[in-house]
C-alpha cells in the first residue's frame, strides 16, 4: 500500500504508545488496533536503531526467509558418519556451540566416553575418561560445523550411522545420527554395555537395512511428512509419534523387499515402531537443511541455528556467518521420570532446537494437544505458546499448517530484532538429561533461551552495518 490512497477515506490506524491517543481515536469511532508496546530489552536501544536503519535488513530477511521456506528436504540415504561427514578416527562431534572436555557437563562427558569405547580407542570407561581429559589424539567439534545436528549430547563418531537429507531446491546436505530410543542411551550420557551393543546393532543391521529400503524407495519428501504430522498431533520435537508411523509406513514395503532375513527385519521394524522419537532425528536433519539454506545473507537478522552444549545456549544468525552468540544454558522446567527431580537435571543440551529454529517443536505446540502437560496442562496453554511465537517471527509457514488455528501456518523465522524489541524468548521444548554421566534421560519439558545470546547477536549485527 502507498500513501496515495491515504486521503481517500477514514484512516485505519495502528497505535503504539499513549493509551490516551488511542482512546481519542476510539471516541471518534475510528477503526484501530492498539499495540501493547513495552520498552525493548535493556541495552538494546542503540543497536536496535542501527539495525532497523540498515537498508539491507528487510530485503535480506525476505531473501533468507524465502530460502528457508522454499527448501525441500528429502531423506536420501543412511551412511556411516566417517564417510558421510569426513570424520576421522579420534574426531567426535557434539551438540551446541564449541566446548571442551573441561567445560562439558555429565551427559556430554558420558556420551563422549561411550563414543570412545565404541570406536575402540579405550577398553574401559575410566580409560576413556583419562584419554578425553588428556585430549591427545582427540578432536571435539560442533555437529553444526559439519552440516550436522545431534539430539541431546549430540555425540557423533565415525562408525555411527547418520541420516542424510538433501534439500533438492538448493542442493545442500544435512545429517543427523539415527535415534537410539529412550531411557539408557548415549545421547543422554549413558555408556553401559547395553548402550554400546545397541549402537553396534544399529551400525551393522539397522543402518544397512534402512539404506537399502531408502535406496529402493528413492528420495523421501520430508516436507510432506512434516505437514501431515502437524495434522496428526505431533509438534516434531517432544512428540514424533505420528511422523514415526508415517515414516515406517512409507518404508515398510521397501524394507520387506530388501531381502534381509525376516528376524533382522522384524527387529528393525520393532525398533522403529517401539520408539516414538525415531522421526525426531529425521526431522532435525530436515530442519537443518532448511535453516542452512537461509545462511549467510548479509544484513539478515534471521536466526539460523539455536543449539546447546549443556553449558552454553548458542545461536547463529544469517547476517553474521558462523559466529556463535551464547549465554548460559538453563536447567529445563518439566516433568520428571520416576523419582528424578530438578536436582538431577543437567543444564539444557542438544541441537534439537533446530526444530524451533524452523517453526516446529515449541513453536508448533498448538498442533500437539496430547502433550499440553508440558506447557501448563490445558489446550489453551499450547495455543497461547504458539500464538506468542508469531510476535517474534517473520512469516507463517506456507506448508506446515496448524489445524486448530484454522490451518494458519506455523510461526517461522525468528528475528533477533523482534526478540530484542518484545523480550519474548523462543519457546523451546526439550528432553532433560541427568547431570551425572551415565544416568540417561530424567525427564522432558520446556526451557528458556538466555536473552544474552540474542542481544549479543543484535550488537554484532549493529557493528556489521557500521552502527
Amino acid at each position, binding site marked *: 500500500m502507498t*500513501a496515495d490512497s491515504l486521503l481517500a477515506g*477514514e484512516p485505519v490506524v*495502528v497505535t503504539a504508545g499513549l493509551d490516551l*491517543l488511542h482512546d481519542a*481515536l476510539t471516541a*471518534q469511532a475510528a477503526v484501530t488496533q492498539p499495540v501493547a508496546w513495552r*520498552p525493548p530489552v535493556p541495552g538494546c536501544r542503540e543497536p536496535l536503531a542501527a539495525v532497523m*536503519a540498515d537498508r539491507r535488513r528487510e530485503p535480506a530477511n525476505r531473501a533468507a526467509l524465502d530460502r528457508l521456506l522454499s527448501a525441500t528436504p528429502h531423506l536420501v540415504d543412511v551412511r556411516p558418519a566417517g564417510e558421510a561427514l569426513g570424520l576421522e578416527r579420534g574426531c567426535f562431534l557434539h551438540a551446541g556451540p564449541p566446548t571442551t572436555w573441561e567445560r562439558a557437563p555429565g551427559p556430554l562427558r558420558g556420551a563422549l566416553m561411550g563414543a570412545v569405547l565404541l570406536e575402540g580407542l579405550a577398553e574401559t570407561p575410566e580409560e576413556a575418561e583419562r584419554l578425553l581429559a588428556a585430549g591427545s589424539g582427540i578432536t571435539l567439534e560442533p555437529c553444526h560445523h559439519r552440516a550436522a545436528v545431534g539430539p541431546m549430547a549430540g555425540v557423533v563418531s565415525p562408525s555411527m550411522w547418520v541420516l542424510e537429507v538433501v534439500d533438492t531446491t538448493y542442493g545442500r546436505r544435512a545429517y543427523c545420527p539415527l535415534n537410539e530410543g529412550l531411557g539408557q542411551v548415549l545421547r543422554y550420557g549413558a555408556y553401559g554395555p547395553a548402550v554400546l551393543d545397541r549402537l553396534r546393532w544399529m551400525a551393522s543391521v539397522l543402518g544397512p537395512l534402512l539404506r537399502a529400503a531408502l535406496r529402493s524407495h528413492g528420495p523421501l519428501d520430508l516436507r510432506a511428512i512434516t505437514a501431515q504430522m502437524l495434522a496428526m498431533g505431533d509438534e516434531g520435537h517432544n512428540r514424533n509419534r505420528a511422523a514415526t508411523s508415517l515414516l515406517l509406513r512409507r518404508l515398510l514395503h521397501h524394507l520387506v523387499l530388501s531381502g534381509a532375513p525376516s528376524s533382522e527385519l522384524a527387529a528393525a521394524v520393532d525398533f522403529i515402531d517401539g520408539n516414538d522419537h525415531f522421526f525426531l532425528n529425521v526431522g532435525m536433519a530436515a530442519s537443518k537443511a532448511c535453516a542452512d539454506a537461509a545462511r549467510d545473507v548479509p544484513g539478515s537478522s534471521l536466526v539460523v541455528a539455536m543449539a546447546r552444549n549443556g553449558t552454553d545456549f548458542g545461536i547463529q544468525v544469517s547476517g553474521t556467518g558462523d559466529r556463535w552468540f551464547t549465554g548460559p544454558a538453563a536447567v529445563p522446567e518439566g516433568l520428571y521420570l520416576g523419582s528424578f527431580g530438578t536436582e538431577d537435571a543437567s543444564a539444557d543440551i542438544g541441537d534439537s532446537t533446530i526444530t524451533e529454529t524452523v517453526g516446529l517443536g515449541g513453536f508448533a505446540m498448538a498442533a500437539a494437544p496430547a502433550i499440553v502437560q508440558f506447557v501448563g496442562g490445558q489446550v489453551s496453554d499450547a495455543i*497461547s505458546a504458539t500464538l506468542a511465537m508469531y510476535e517474534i517471527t517473520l512469516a507463517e509457514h506456507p506448508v506446515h499448517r496448524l489445524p486448530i488455528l484454522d490451518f494458519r501456518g506455523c510461526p517461522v523465522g525468528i528475528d533477533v530484532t523482534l526478540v530484542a524489541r518484545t523480550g519474548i524468548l523462543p519457546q523451546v521444548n526439550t528432553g532433560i538429561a541427568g547431570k551425572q554421566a551415565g544416568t540417561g534421560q530424567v525427564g522432558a519439558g520446556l526451557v528458556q533461551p538466555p536473552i544474552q545470546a540474542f542481544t549479543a547477536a543484535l550488537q554484532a549485527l549493529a557493528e556489521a552495518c557500521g552502527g
Partner: protein
Amino acid sequence: MTSSVAVRRGTYVDSVRLMQVTREAGRLPGITAALVAMATPTNLELLAAMGLARPDGAGPDDLVVALEARDWEALSRAFGVIEEALARAAGPGAPGGFAQPGPPRTVRSAARRLPDANLALVSVPGQHAFTEAMDALEAGLSVMVFSDNVSLEEEVTLKEEAERRHLLVMGPDCGTAMINGVGLGFANVVRPGPVGLVAASGTGSQQVVCLLEAAGIGTSHVIGVGGRDLSEPVGARSCLRALGLLDADPATQLIVVVSKPPSPEIAAQVRDAATGCSTPTLLGFLGLGQPDLTSLAEQVVAHLGRPAPSWPRWSGEPGQQARPGALRGLFSGGSLCEEATAIAAQALGPIRSNVPLDPAWALPDDLRPDGHVMIDFGDDRLTTGRPHPMIDPTLRRERLAAEAADPTCGVVLLDVVLGHGADPDPAAWLAPAIAAARAGGGPAVVVSLCGTPGDPQGLEAQAGQLAGAGASVHLSNAEAARQAVALVRDR
C-alpha cells in the same frame, strides 16, 4: 505519618496512564502524597522532592509506587487501589477457553491483525520511536510520529525510507493531524470543508483550523510534517509529499502551508512545488516580522471570498487592568508561544524564553529571570520523562501560582488548547487558579483559547468558566498576545 516506596522491576505502563493512577491514588482518604511512575531520572527527582527515599537500582524500565499516608491502614488500602488500577492498565488479553491471542507487541504484528490499516500513530518514548516507525513503514503503513526527542538523523532515515516506499511520514514531534475528519494526536473537531493544511507547526495549524471553523470554513485534511521537516537536512520531504497528496485530493480546493520561514533554498523548492500544484496554495511562512496565524486565516477567508470575520472573545471583567510588572507567558503550544513572543518582542523588546527569538534572550536553567518571559512547556527539554503540558497541567499550574505571588509579574498570558487528546477539562484547574490569582490583587490574566464548538470540552463552556474567573479570553492567539502587551504597556 508513614510512607513506602515499592519497585516493580521490568513493569512498563505508559506515562499518561500512570498519571491517572497517581491522581486516583492521591485522592484516596489518608493519602498525603503519591507517585506511581516509571523510575526515570525526572521521576526519581520528583520522588526526592517529595521527601521519599530513592529506591536502590531502579531504572527507567522499573515501576515505582511511592506513597505517603497518615497511617498504615490508609497506606495498605491505597496499595490495593493502585494494584487494581494497574491491572486495568494492563488491559485485556488473558486467554480463556481455546486461547485468544494476546495483544500484538509490535506495529508489524498489529498491522497483520488489521489488514486494512493504512496508518500508524506512534507515541512511544522518543528514543524508541524510530524502531516502531520503521516497522510501520516496512509493514506498508504511513506513519505519524507523535513522539518527540527523535534525532534528526533518524528523521531523515525515516523520510528517505518513506520516499522509497511511496509512504508518508508525519513528524516526528507531530502533535496534530486530521484525515477525513478523524483527528490524530491533539486535534480539534471541525466541519468538512475545502481547506487542506500542510503543517510543520502543530498548534499553529490547530489555531488556523479553529479560526477557519469560527469563520464558517471547514477543513479537508491536516497533514502534520514535524517542526524540522523544512530544515536543510530533512529537505521538506514530507511537506512536498503532502502537497502532492492534497493536490490530488478532490475535496481540497485550497492548500495552506504553515511553517516557520525555511532557508531560501527550501523555500524556493516548496514554492516551486506549490506553483506546480493545480490546487491554489497559500504559503504561510510565519515568524518575526511576518504575518501571524490570524492574518493567515484572514487571507484564507479572503481567498474564499468570505466576509472578513471578527474573532470571538470573552471577557468576564470588562476593562481588566494589570498591576505594574512584566509579561509572563506560560504556553503549552510551541507555535502559539513563538507567535506570542514575536508579537510581544515587537512592542516590548527583549523577551526571555526557553525557545528564544534571539540566542541572547535564552532563559537561565531555573527558568526564573526578571523581566518579560515566555515559556514553552511543550519544548522537548521540558517533556523528557513526563507527559505533554496539554495533558498534564502540573508544571504550568505550579508556575501560574508562582507568578501570581510574584509582585514583579503584571500580566500572565496562557494558552489553552482544546480538542481530542488534550486535557478533558482544563477550566477545572485553570479557572480556580485564575480566580485565586485575580482575587489577591494579582496579575491580569489573558487566555488564548484554541478550540471549536465541536470539541469534546466545548468551546463556549470552557471560555465561559475562564472568563467568569476573571480572564480575558481570545480565540485568536495574536489578539490575546496584543491584549497582554497592551495591559503591560497601559501601566
